């Protein structure tokens, strides 16, 4: 994106809409090791962007940086036109961690009631909250389990409760860390349909991570990551065409080989 970003405060008063996420020279340190190394990319609004790469490549760290829970972040990282972690973003982003973060000793509905009360507090908002909670439970297809304790649900069901929490308050940006891991194919398809509905009907932006490459085909755009760096930032079709591969997985492997070869020549040139 080449348009200049409006400053904070200008975002809601017209002007060009900034991309959902814009990173420049984004680096994250853990101890003295850099987990993310000088990333630069943009995530367009209203689309599903897949964040793909092997386990341990920095996907979760990048997501935590975007939602503002990661420490030691340097470089530029703007989310919905504001610096990542800005207090004004807290109601505009929905975030699902890899492990379900819900209270096991509350029912599904009680979990959602509580998080809804944090997002949209006050007695005046009670009716709006109730409708929001009911909708979120329906979105993840847990209406029949609404009064079950979260701790008594299966792993996949607990993950969906966690997802439902992130859907509360109709966030503009959803950051989902491996939301489909451990789910059966039918549920996975249903969730991806839900993600597409959320993007299409609510105009939300979704950033979905996965280490399963076959999910890549369901995204509008892809960020391929490896060892803390972005290998590619493109649409699935363009990636396949550019690398002359049949699948995104083959394209990824092709890019890894390229990167390794380039790394070798750089080292020998030194």
């Amino acid at each position, binding site marked *: 994106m080449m348009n200049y970003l409006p400053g904070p405060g200008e975002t809601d008063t017209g002007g060009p809409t900034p991309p959902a996420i814009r990173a420049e020279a984004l680096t994250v340190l853990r101890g003295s090791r850099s987990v993310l190394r000088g990333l630069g990319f943009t995530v367009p609004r209203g689309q599903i962007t897949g964040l793909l790469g092997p386990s341990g490549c920095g996907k979760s760290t990048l997501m935590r940086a975007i*939602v503002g829970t990661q420490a030691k972040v340097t470089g530029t990282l703007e989310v919905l036109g504001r610096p990542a972690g800005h207090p004004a973003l*807290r109601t505009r982003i929905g975030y699902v961690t890899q492990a379900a973060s819900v209270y096991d000793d*509350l029912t599904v509905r009680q979990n959602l009631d509580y998080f809804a009360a944090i997002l949209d507090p006050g007695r005046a908002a009670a009716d709006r909250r109730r409708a929001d909670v009911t909708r979120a439970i329906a979105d993840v297809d847990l209406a029949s389990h609404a009064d079950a*304790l979260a701790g008594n649900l299966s792993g996949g069901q607990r993950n969906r409760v966690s997802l439902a929490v992130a859907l509360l308050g109709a966030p503009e940006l959803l950051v989902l860390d491996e939301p489909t891991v451990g789910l059966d194919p039918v549920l996975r398809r249903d969730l991806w349909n839900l993600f597409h509905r959320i993007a299409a009907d609510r105009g939300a932006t979704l950033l979905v991570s996965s280490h399963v490459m076959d999910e890549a085909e369901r995204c509008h755009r892809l960020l391929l990551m490896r060892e803390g760096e972005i290998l590619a930032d493109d649409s699935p079709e363009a990636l396949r065409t550019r690398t002359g591969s049949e699948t995104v997985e083959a394209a990824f492997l092709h890019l890894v080989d390229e990167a390794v070869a380039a790394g070798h020549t750089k080292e020998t040139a030194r």
Partner: protein
Amino acid sequence: MSTTAPAPAAALNLSRTTATAARVLRQLRHDPRTIALMILVPCLMLVLLRYVFDGSPHTFDNIGASLLGIFPLITMFLVTSIATLRERTSGTLERLLAMPLGKGDLIAGYALAFGGLAIVQSALATGLAVWLLGLDVTGSPWLLLLVALLDALLGTALGLFVSAFAASEFQAVQFMPAVIFPQLLLCGLFTPRDQMHPVLEAISDVLPMSYAVDGMNEVLRHTDMTATFVRDALIVAGCALLVLGLGAATLRRRTT
């Protein structure tokens, strides 16, 4: 890294605080055994103590009054440290801090929920001790209840603070003897503090539980609210607030 303190998060939001307190109590309601243990165990201990000292009711007066202050501290310490630890390890704390919840809202919510429970626990224990077990108190039982409540708050604060340093529930439980037992030994329950080795006496002077027990003893011996009682109550309350503040500092929005 401390992010710039935003105005909405710094101020206490009443509905978020009460929503948090209601949620904590709702979690407990799904666990009736814990509630029963919290409420009944102190009462049973008092009954036990009363008949252990069947022959010397004066000893029961002394120890019983002190214990009325110590029980809420210990229970609240344990419950809070484990509850907050679970909040940290389950990822719900990270989720909450990524939402528009102030740290103060969370802490006040916990203090409110467990404080309420502490009132029930202390009221039952105090009522039982004074009216059924014949604990001989010169002052007003309401003052006993006040100190018990402040102790409960101190226990909540210590539990919250300590949970930041525990990586597992095993460690959290082990912090109980580490943090509470030395105070228990030095608070004057077993020997008057001025009869201890001077070094230990000096240490006991800076431990909050000493003042909790002193306060209880003041109520035991004097009809009016003495200056010493006021001082003791203020010290316990001040310590609780101080440790709550330290506990708030351990809640980080950004973690590595």
